[in-house]
């Protein structure tokens, strides 16, 4: 039985040692090379006696990040990718929670590391060669891992302003990737065009389906992503068969009319999306130009590895219809519970809850937050069994398909990122000269709207917030109100504010 995900890299690199595995703008590594480089890096971690330790990976998105992930897994440690474009204040918050023993980085980032590395040992991937060695020590250490040991920790936005570290073990990813493989049938002939940043859970599918099947993963350069025609030409040139993108990335291409200019019908056969609600209008444009591809709407928060439901689009949807999120993946069970914790009837709205092996082990170093959402299955009084309460609302339609209906709380999805509006509000309230503030989301214009009683220009707010929150969390509009409207409980009346948008 496979207990560590890297057994799959061993198998794939034995089957396809010289096949291109992972490709970025500057580097192409075969599966054999990826394995050797990861093992060489893992050897260093084993020599230094690091085992079951958090390892921060701090470098720009590249093949070397993937090599570092695999090295961490080979050595029985767990990784956490840290985005280099993130403001220092947020990196510091993450580092405070993670307390990594090791940071794997690149020499060119040496200067910025000084600001948050603390006591952590820094290993530069530039120093890792490709010479094959004896890896007995690494394999011995790997054999000590269980499938319930952590593979990674991904940090997501937290409502109190403190990011939450979602822990995921080897078993969760092994099972998730098996489900994806059963549904979509990838082979070594596939090429995947990766969009998702590596700190975002959608990248798990891209990275690990390639590892399992020998499909080639192309990291699409970010400058290509900005320009619709060059982006589609890139997909065409590399003969990309599969994309798994956030709907906003697909929207740009469709809205600007690029699909009618570049014919992708020959190679592109799977178009998967997840992370936010897909507009049927945009989906229909894609389906018009690439009619024979399989389109699938996936759903799932980071706490359930990546996705836990899927819907393969099999009919035309009008603009005002809900595109289903479909049904549970194998080895996963979805419970939609009403306020009395009973399963809902068809058409009744409830909270979407999940059980299965893809569930996170909980939030890193945060037992309180873990207890709030990872709870005993209310339908099982006989023995301990965990479910995850997603905070998402859902119902079943007449065909028995799951429909996503938004959030119970103040969490939003903006440009594919999951954001707690409370985290932005906390950051705004830490700025001097601002008394009260409230954030809402304008889903028509896809903008975060900040309500203030103090007259401060949007430009200035953004400038001052830039050092506290990532760019995607910056407000897109400021609205002044003389006095924040309050509801009966004395809380800011968000319904009234929403009317002002």
């Amino acid at each position, binding site marked *: 039985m496979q207990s560590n995900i890297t057994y799959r890299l061993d198998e794939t690199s034995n089957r396809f040692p010289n096949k291109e595995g992972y490709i970025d703008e500057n580097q192409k590594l075969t599966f054999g090379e990826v394995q050797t480089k990861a093992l060489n890096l893992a050897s260093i971690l084993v020599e230094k006696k690091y085992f079951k330790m958090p390892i921060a990976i701090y470098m720009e998105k590249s093949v070397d990040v993937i090599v570092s992930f695999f090295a961490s897994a080979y050595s029985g440690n767990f990784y956490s990718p840290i985005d280099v474009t993130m403001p220092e204040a947020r990196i510091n918050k993450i580092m405070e929670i993670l307390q990594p023993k090791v940071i794997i980085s690149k020499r060119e980032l040496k200067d910025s590391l000084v600001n948050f590395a603390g006591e952590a040992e820094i290993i530069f991937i530039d120093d890792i060669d490709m010479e094959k060695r004896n890896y007995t020590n690494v394999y011995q250490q790997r054999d000590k891992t269980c499938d319930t040991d952590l593979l990674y920790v991904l940090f997501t936005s937290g409502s109190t302003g403190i990011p939450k570290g979602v822990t995921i073990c080897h078993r969760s990813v092994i099972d998730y990737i098996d489900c994806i493989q059963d549904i979509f049938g990838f082979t070594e002939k596939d090429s995947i065009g990766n969009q998702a940043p590596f700190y975002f859970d959608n990248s798990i599918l891209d990275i690990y389906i390639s590892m399992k099947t020998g499909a080639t993963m192309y990291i699409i350069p*970010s*400058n290509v*992503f*900005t*320009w*619709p*025609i*060059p982006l589609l030409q890139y997909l065409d040139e590399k003969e990309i068969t599969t994309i798994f993108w956030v709907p*906003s*990335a697909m*929207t*740009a291409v469709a*809205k*600007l*009319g*690029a699909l009618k*200019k570049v014919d992708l019908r020959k190679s592109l056969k799977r178009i998967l999306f997840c992370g936010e609600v897909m507009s049927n209008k945009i989906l229909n444009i894609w389906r018009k130009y690439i009619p024979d591809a399989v389109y699938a709407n996936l759903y799932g928060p980071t706490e359930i590895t990546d996705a836990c439901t899927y819907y393969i689009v099999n009919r035309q949807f009008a603009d005002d219809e809900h595109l289903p999120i479909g049904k549970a993946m194998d080895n996963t069970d979805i419970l939609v519970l009403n306020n009395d914790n009973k399963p809902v009837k068809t058409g009744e709205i409830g909270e979407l809850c999940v059980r299965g092996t893809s569930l996170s082990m909980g939030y890193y170093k945060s037992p309180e937050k873990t207890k709030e959402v990872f709870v005993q299955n209310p339908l099982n009084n006989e023995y301990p069994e965990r479910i995850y309460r997603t905070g998402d609302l859902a119902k079943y339609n007449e065909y028995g398909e799951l429909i996503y209906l938004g959030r119970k709380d103040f969490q939003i999805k903006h*440009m594919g990122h999951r954001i707690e509006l409370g985290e932005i509000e906390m950051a705004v309230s830490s700025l001097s000269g601002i008394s009260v503030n409230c954030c809402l989301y304008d889903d028509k214009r896809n903008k975060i709207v900040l309500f203030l009683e103090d007259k401060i*220009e*949007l*430009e200035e707010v*953004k*400038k001052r917030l830039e050092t506290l929150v990532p760019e995607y969390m910056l407000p897109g509009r400021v609205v002044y109100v003389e006095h924040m409207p309050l509801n009966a409980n004395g809380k800011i009346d968000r319904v009234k504010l929403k009317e002002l948008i």
Partner: protein
Amino acid sequence: MEELMRILKEVKPGLEFEGRTDLATSHDLDSFDIISLVSELNDQLDIDIPVEEIVAENFDSVEAIQKLIESCE
């Protein structure tokens, strides 16, 4: 030009546009900004920017964007 500056400031407040020649290549205008900018230009100036023209060199400076607008009028 004035109208363009107004739209630019609306799409990307806080960014210094004048004198720049690398607005797009430096990623100061990212893919989401470009979509918003193109839709605003199309709507507000009643033009239709062809998708083939949506490439970095046409968005790297205010002058380049202005030239692009004029070619679409």
